């Protein structure tokens, strides 16, 4: 390098004036190489470690989801994940209003079943409408895989009850109307049992193995 300075007539100038300064510069350049080598080594190690760490992403993802109470298969880019508590809240909102309405319809039917056929049938029709709406809401509810089978049974039980109540609503007399009561009550008990199963399954935190 100094040669080229000399050739270019700069030998009298600052850098090529004495060997001392150029040696200092060379030493500094060498130090630059050492620094770069050290940082490159550290970086290589960190990059390789990062890649190794990335291989365990799947397992850590499952653990993290389970720790956060994320429901399997209900991961959403939008909210990160649907947690057990979020799902519980949704379930409570869904069931509370529909069950209240159904209870009111049943009470109305019970009052009129012995004395007024038209009012009793009207109460039954209202109950069928509410039950159908409840059935539709259940079909759209994002049940996690573990809860899906009891939920399916519940939906089938509700549909059976709707069918039965439809027949009951077409009765021509109060006696015929009341003859359905035992079967309707039995289907109601089946629905109640299925509801309990769904509720229990929904409120159970997913395990690491259940996470996708």
């Amino acid at each position, binding site marked *: *390098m100094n040669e080229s300075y000399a050739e*270019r007539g700069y030998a009298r100038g600052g850098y090529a004036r004495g060997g001392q300064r150029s040696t200092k510069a060379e030493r500094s350049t060498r130090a*630059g190489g050492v*620094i770069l080598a050290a940082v490159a080594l550290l970086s290589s190690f960190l990059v390789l470690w990062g890649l190794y760490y990335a291989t365990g992403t799947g397992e850590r*993802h499952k653990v*993290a989801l389970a720790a956060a109470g994320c429901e399997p298969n209900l991961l959403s880019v939008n909210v*990160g994940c649907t947690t057990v508590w979020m799902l519980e809240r949704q379930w409570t909102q869904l069931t509370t209003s529909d069950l209240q309405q159904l209870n009111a319809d049943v009470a109305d039917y019970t009052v009129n079943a012995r004395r007024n056929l038209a009012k009793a049938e009207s109460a039954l029709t209202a109950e069928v409408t509410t039950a159908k709406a409840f059935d539709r809401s259940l079909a759209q509810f994002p049940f996690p895989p573990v809860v899906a089978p009891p939920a399916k049974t519940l939906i089938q039980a509700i549909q059976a009850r709707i069918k039965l109540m439809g027949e009951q609503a077409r009765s021509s007399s109060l006696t015929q109307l009341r003859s359905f009561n035992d079967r309707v009550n039995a289907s109601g008990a089946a629905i109640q049992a299925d509801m309990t199963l769904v509720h229990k399954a929904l409120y159970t935190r997913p395990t690491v193995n259940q996470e996708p």
Partner: protein
Amino acid sequence: MSTTRDYERDPYAREHDLYPAEPDLYPADYESGVYPDDGLGKWGDEEEPAADHQPRRRWSKSVDAWMEGRIKFGGTGVKRKTAALILLGAWGFLPLFFMLPSLFTFNTNTIGNSVDDTLGTGAMVNLFMCLLITPAVTLTGQRWFVPLRRWYGIMFACCGIGDALGAAFFDDFAGNPFAKLVEHTFTLIGFLMVLLAIPLFITSNNWAQRKLGRYWKRLQRLTYVIWGLLFFHLATLEGFGFQRGSNGSGFAGDGDAIFHQRLYQYCACSLFLLTIRLPPVKRWIVARQQEGRNRLVFMAVMPIFALFLFGFIFIINELIFKGTHSFVENPSSE
């Protein structure tokens, strides 16, 4: 080559390295960075390009010259350099673009919840892009992309100021807007960074550059103070650890808690940006390039750059993730 008087009168030319750094000491045909001591006393010098040997310089100059050519566009033509700068620079506007819908609709919920994430991360991206220009010049010897430094700097300031305004007026912290900015250590440091960015933003034009003369460059070196403060801002915001289970910093939902720790991202990116700026390292690179050992330089720099990319990709991921939520005005709760 212009005279010393021209140089002093025209700081813009000095900034663009049209004149030597020390015109009185060096000969008239001085080429920046050719001398071994060029790096000395230039810590954090954003303006000096890498010195190089003739073949490399020729190649770099030829790329610069090619960029000056024109692309035919309809009836008219546009400079390749202009087109490339627009394409590369447009990304700097992305954080502000993400916030536009909530600004137009004045959706305070979105602004309050995600302005700090979207614009804060955007400011970090723009700062790193701004700081990346000098190492890129050092390593490639090309200069056509140098104007991007100013653009990314401006975008950094805009994002930072937007972040501070959002935090001051729409955050959940208690107190008046000023109290919100100073009541936590990390907000105080962030506020300080914004205060430092304001004079840089105001003076980021040719007129200010001419008026301030040699003081302009000194003022612009505040960028390094901001860079340093960002470390403390993130350290106080995120801590030094990472998320385990549901506790700690960095979102662990996808199982990559370490990669999402913003302080680690900062360190991974800064290592490259800092190392290439060190004068001895700069000199070593120049010396090896002069010897024609570009492969050695490549081998030495590649792992550090790979680490930079590792960190930077996750910052971009954060920006796009939070930014798209802000854009659809459904702010992420993470």
